[in-house]
């Protein structure tokens, strides 16, 4: 979580310096949703999410330098500089990517799970989506078929209460989003997403349900994004008090206080991990800075699997 937080802080600074371009959506405040989940699943399990996707591959164990290089658009990035912030991918880590069309990843998550069931494995798929994304029609079609075919997928709503400038209350009569699953009789519940331990327990329980062949689960995780929607959003639609209320429940501070209370960690240990994280982030920036942009010949690569695909090239 600390790495996620410091990585995002750095990304925010680099965006202002125009080292990172395009749209850039930070995960500050939401770290527990990934940290609590990865500790409850195995590396063979799958993950897919939307464009707010820096923390997910970090959680899966990808070195931050490959993420930072991608944010820079460098050829050494995890998507070879072709995807940028919104489209991180990590096949090695069973991370099926960050997706830019809101809700587009919901049926994909069901499909990834479909393939696991088809192949007869016990792997589960974690499919993350925002509170705004649940308003897309594709969710309903995917939920219904996931239940019908008992697909091993955990749908996770990252409910940070805002879709850009629109609060959940302004888009629906049903403010408890987990209830969306109920009309499909999908096991559904609300989870405190600011608490790593409760997230871990909920994901572990859901994954067990999936692995037993009982089908999908919906978890609505209540969380908050500390930053604006993207780097260009001043977030005027919410109050400072609201932000402070959530910051008081900060997921990292919560873990630290448990560790401190039980004397499982010393201040020296905390400092040491801050140091370690800082070194990792610095290394990532240096790696990104020193990597080259993709060469123009890369333009026609990776579009098709077929290597000699006949592109139209008019010469201009």
């Amino acid at each position, binding site marked *: 979580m600390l790495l996620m937080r410091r990585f995002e802080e750095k990304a925010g600074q680099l965006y202002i310096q125009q080292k990172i371009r395009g749209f850039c959506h930070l995960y500050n405040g939401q770290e527990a949703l990934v940290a609590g989940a990865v500790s409850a699943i195995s590396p063979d399990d799958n993950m897919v999410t939307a464009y707010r996707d820096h923390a997910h591959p970090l959680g899966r164990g990808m070195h931050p330098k490959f993420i930072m290089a991608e944010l820079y658009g460098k050829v050494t990035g995890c998507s070879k500089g072709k995807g940028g912030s919104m489209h991180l991918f990590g096949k090695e880590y069973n991370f099926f990517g960050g997706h830019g069309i*809101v809700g587009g990843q919901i049926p994909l998550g069901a499909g990834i799970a479909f393939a696991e069931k088809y192949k007869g494995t016990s792997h589960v798929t974690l499919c993350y989506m925002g509170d705004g994304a649940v308003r897309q029609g594709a969710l309903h079609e995917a939920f219904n078929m996931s239940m019908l075919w008992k697909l091993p997928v955990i749908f996770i709503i990252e409910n940070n209460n805002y879709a850009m400038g*629109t609060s959940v209350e302004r888009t629906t009569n049903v403010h408890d989003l987990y209830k969306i699953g109920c009309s499909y009789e999908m096991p559904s519940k609300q989870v405190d997403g600011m608490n790593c331990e409760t997230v871990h327990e909920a994901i572990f329980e859901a994954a067990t349900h999936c692995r037993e062949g009982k089908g999908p689960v919906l978890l609505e995780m209540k969380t908050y994004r500390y930053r604006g929607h993207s780097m260009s959003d001043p977030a005027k639609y919410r109050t400072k008090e609201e932000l402070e209320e959530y910051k008081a429940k900060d997921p990292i501070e919560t873990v630290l206080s448990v560790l401190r209370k039980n004397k499982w960690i010393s201040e020296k240990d905390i400092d040491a991990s801050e140091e370690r994280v800082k070194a990792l982030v610095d290394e990532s920036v240096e790696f990104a800075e020193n990597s080259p942009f993709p060469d123009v010949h890369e*333009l026609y690569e990776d579009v098709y699997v077929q290597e000699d695909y006949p592109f139209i090239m008019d010469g*201009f």
Partner: protein
Amino acid sequence: MRTIQFREALREALSEEMRKDETIFLIGEEVAEYNGAYKVSQGMLDEFGSKRVIDTPIAELGFAGIAVGAAMNGLRPVVEFMTFNFSLVAIDQIINSAAKMMSMSGGQYSVPIVFRGPTASAGMLSSQHSQAFESWYANCPGLKVIVPSNPYDAKGLLKSAIRDNDPVIFMESEQMYGDKAEVPEEEYTIPIGVAEIKRAGSDVTLVSFGKIIKTCYTAAEELEKEGIHAEIIDLRTVRPIDYNTVINSVKKTNRLVIVEEAWPLASIASEITFKIQKEAFDYLDAPILRVTSADVPLPYAPTLIEASLPNPGRIIKAVKQVMYK
């Protein structure tokens, strides 16, 4: 004359028409309380209220369909897509409902609706957020497709689009919203389907539309320094296409280069090329060339974007080739 921004020109067109006609309403994501993702509808909620400036959930298929239904039943919706990339979620209702309704009902149900928002690339946004779908929508009978290139045209054409009784696709650009130009305060409209010669020239015709017209200007100025006089035609509407303006220009210049941000296959450029070889074959002194985006999804890295999008250098190279220079 006063100068205003592209977004203000759009806002004036919307507001002026809404003041005159109670049945017009604006619907889309973040159009009301947030004042529009790109501030086109700034202040409109205050003026027209939440009955007529309507925020939606992120549910393009649903709200596009609701708007088409409302249009079938006497209202005149203006639907804002945050970008046309997201219109693909709604495209079933645009193509299968809006574009078909008149014909399928034997003329009983018209669909007076405008779908508007930005199209094409807007910086380093990678492939899902950089697509130019003008030729996709232009392919579909039942629709009209407008792609303005400047604030003056945007205002006049949007007013025509709103007054039009058929479904209109109106495509803008994030990269144009801040552009400023002279726009008169007096009422005016610009007819749909009429191209304009934006710059007269005798040596070569450059045909384009939308944001990329600016790139043509830059290229034309460079060419001028070398004594090559390029004529620039802004199609303004890509369905219907004003073929005659292009044909007449080619009869004069005998050379044609088409510039378009979309992918090459089945593009507007392909269509114009067909028409010109059919109608003005004997006038051509060189094969028609086109400058489009590369035939690939637009990546994120700046080096690859530079190699992909039409730019002045590529246009100049194409012009010189048709001039055999």
